[in-house]
């Protein structure tokens, strides 16, 4: 099987928003809609304070809460892990936006939208013998654009893939793992001991 997933290396991310801009441009999202963005967070109190940059977006969950609440079956999950929205079926009820614990959805012209992992590139790549996450034409725009090489994309089920190697070599976590959503988005924060 294939499980497309994304990895963000928090040691490398500088919060520059190049991924945000590349995503907006490639996907033509309107002003105010950001399928990919980088949070600028603080923890602690002056002077013991840390500032962290965290790329976020749709986590392409194993068990997406957005899909469970979708009354029109517009939101679906592919076998390769990518969560999709069929605009022809979406009725714009926004239940999905409310259900998503990652605030990853936005309505455009009455239709729910979100990060697609640039699915058409992935599909084009796999059909053309390219490797998503390695060949730029088969790789999400945010990953291609990342100037810190903090974002990575690949097949988490392939132990030889780029991201499987990163996950094996580094300590990582996923957001809100306690909710049981099974996010397909991993954050690296240090080398494995």
């Amino acid at each position: 099987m294939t499980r497309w997933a994304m990895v963000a290396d928090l040691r490398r991310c500088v919060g520059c928003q190049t991924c945000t801009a590349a995503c907006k441009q490639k996907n033509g999202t309107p002003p105010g809609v950001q399928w990919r963005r980088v949070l600028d967070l603080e923890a602690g109190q002056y002077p013991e304070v840390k500032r962290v940059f965290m790329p976020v977006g749709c986590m392409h969950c194993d068990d997406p809460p957005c899909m469970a609440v979708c009354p029109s079956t517009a939101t679906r999950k592919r076998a390769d892990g990518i969560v999709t929205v069929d605009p022809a079926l979406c009725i714009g009820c926004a239940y999905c936006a409310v259900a998503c614990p990652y605030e990853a959805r936005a309505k455009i012209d009455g239709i729910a939208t979100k990060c697609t992992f640039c699915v058409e590139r992935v599909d084009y790549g796999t059909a053309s013998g390219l490797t998503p996450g390695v060949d730029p034409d088969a790789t999400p725009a945010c990953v291609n654009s990342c100037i810190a090489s903090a974002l990575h994309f690949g097949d988490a089920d392939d132990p030889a893939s780029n991201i499987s190697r990163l996950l094996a070599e580094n300590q990582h976590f996923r957001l809100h793992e306690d909710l049981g959503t099974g996010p397909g988005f991993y954050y690296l924060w240090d080398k494995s001991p």
Partner: protein
Amino acid sequence: MRRVPTYCYQCVAGPDLLTVKVSDGVATEVEPNFAAAAVHPGGGKVCVKAYGLVQKTYHPDRVLAPMKRTNPKKGKDEDPGFVPISWDEALDLISGKLRNIRSHGLLDESGYPRVAASFGGGGTPQSYMGSFPAFLAAWGPIDFGFGSGQGVKCYHSEHLYGELWQRGFTISPDTPLTNYLISCGANVEASGGVAGVWRHANARERGLRRVQVEPHLSVTGACSAEWLPIKPKTDAAFLYALAHVLVCEEKRERLDLEFLFRHTSAPYLVGPHGFYLRDPKTREPLIHASLEGSSLATAVEIGPDDEVLAQGELEGATAFTKLVAHLAPYSPEWAAGICDIRAETIRRIAREYLDAACVGQSIEIEGQALPYRPVAISLGKTVTNGWGGYECCWARTLLAALVGALEVPGGILGTTVRLNRPMSQRHASVARGPDGLMAFPFNKTDAAHWSARPNIRNAYRSMVPLAADGPWSQALGPTHFSWMFLDGTPEGLPPVTLPELWFVYRTNPAISFWDTEKLGERMARFPFVVAFAFTRDETNHFADILLPDAGDLESLQLIRIGGSKYIEQFWDHEGFALRQPAVAPRGEARDFTDIATALAERTGLLEKYNAAINKGTLGVVLGKHSLREDLAHDCETIWDAVCKAASAELTGGTQAQGLKWWKEHGLATKPFPRTAWYLFPTLKAQGLRFEMPYQERLARIGAELGRRLHEHGMYWWDKQLAEYQALPAWKDFPGEWEWAVSATGGKREEYPFWLLTARSMQYAWGGNVGMQMIKEVADNVAGHGGVIVNRGKAKELGIDEGQWVTIATPKAQVKAKAVLREGIRPDTLLLLGQFGHWATPVAKDFAMPSMNPLVPMSLELTDATGSGADIVKVSLGKAA
């Protein structure tokens, strides 16, 4: 769909390489140039700014036709009444003015050029102005010294002293090898460009420990191992204390004594008057048998103007001995009271630096064994300019010299040269100067050569010996003088006059310089301003003619890439890259090269213009591809010739690929040796020493400059003359700005906050403030929506998140929304970037102020290099 290779050079940290997707003649998407990944030090990527280029191209408010002002009254509140005109009319108006100027002389009654030109930061506009430099070269004297930030709000002291000490216009860590980096305000993750971010991310992952020393927790601080919130403008005290620990507390043998003794001027004997003891016959400095100590010697001591101060049996102490005594008072305990960093922390940092220095180790680079010293100190804006800049640069270079980490693998490296010649060639610029040190093209201070008749209005040649006198020197003098002195020129200089014609391109001094309200008032007096305009903005609001040059994705130019260049562009390749029209110019926008050719033709300068192109003004000597000098060539013909010459240069003459080939491939390179990143081997080969720690030359030059000025009745530079010290002492640098409160009629206790600024990667240098998408993504980074205030301090003052506040000096005030953060000192406020727009479309609606209207433009806040700093004391209160 096709992909068009091109480059982005919107900021000084470029150029970077990209491709543009074009569908049906429309640019739709910017992507990295993956084909360049193997040669570019940032993986062929481009930063967020480049993604704004599509919106820039199709900006609804672009100036798309030449425009003429119809309202003769100029002022911020006057509507210029711009109306569209034809290119013929615009060029006739400009060339008419230019011909008239030529007919009555290129210089005015004060001896200043009648034509002036201002371009934006760091020389980036030159990568967009096509062949205009050839027109400027053909014209003759031009005043490039009306600043918009350069020379004052840049890394000014680093530029000047960096070139003096290590041929570095800017200084960078050797990031791929550095293991321990102390970063005093250097915001490399925001201003280091793609190469900076890429190299530092790699370094962090491999284990680089970076300590960020800065009053606020910047983007760079966020990505650092440790943040030390230092009190503003006290970095010199912190660095002096580090040096104190190394020199006065640690065992001497832990320093790189071999390096200090053989490769620096540390063992030179200093005489009783503070100048080197010299051999009476050769007048060469006497070098002691060891690094430390003193001795009696038959010698002569020579002071300013070749005066013999003493001769005979003279006692001298080594420069290093002088240094030890000089640093003795600057203990961590002393510094702690100044910088608000605990003494034990300072001492720990000094020891970590020393522990990481690997003194005695070597590394092999391309088969050559070189010293390996993986420790570095980088300095940021406001640290490296204005009062205290000299001291910080000196201490940083000293700390490198103490452990031998100067221009060797892992240490601090110069990037390129802009004052020394040949331009951009660090190694070729190394020549033997006096006293076994590198030569430096100081402006002369001896009585026979110094002149009180400057060539341009900012008087860099008369006032700043370190600014040298090359093509970049005009922008590295006190560029605010050109503006200030319009309201009264100080004693001894010819009255500063208005230029009769001022060209403006990719710069906006009306919002980007100091004291912008007053600056605008002066700008309104300029009689004829020609602005190459993308949209309307605050500076071209005062223009007489607006000219729409074809944009970044619409025009043609070949530039050099690779080698080593600021800020972290260290390549293993060098060559050329082409910027080409991905799409047709919109409206009536014209390629800058065609505009320059038309101006040359209409002003009777065509032959000189073509000759300048042939001589290499566009970056390559054309040689056998030279253009006929009596013809007006179109843009493609000119760049085809440049492409062929560049191709020939790269291939040793075996190829001469023309424009068609370059349009297809976008770039071509050849290897650039890694060993060329390091200057130490070049100095060693020539038997030259680094000029550290003792600044005998600067002390002499300062004394001579003082004499010349006083001989001409010029006493208004005396405060600056005091900066010329052989061993610079700590002065109360923060006090300079506290004094400014009193001087402008305020009570110090009523202005308790330090207002600072920091670069924003999304905007810095880009001239892209009007792009909606850039604004949208920039707002994800804290501080783009208002003034950053310490959360605890805000609570104390009753200020809530998002509340409007007033930031004031005794003379001016601005309003901003409060952005509450923990990562800033309670006594510090931060306004990112340079906003405060009132004419630029989109940006004028940001309601985002700038510190620039609050910073006084004054002689007292100008240091000896002619530089000021982005810092001012302010009050903070809820807005009414």
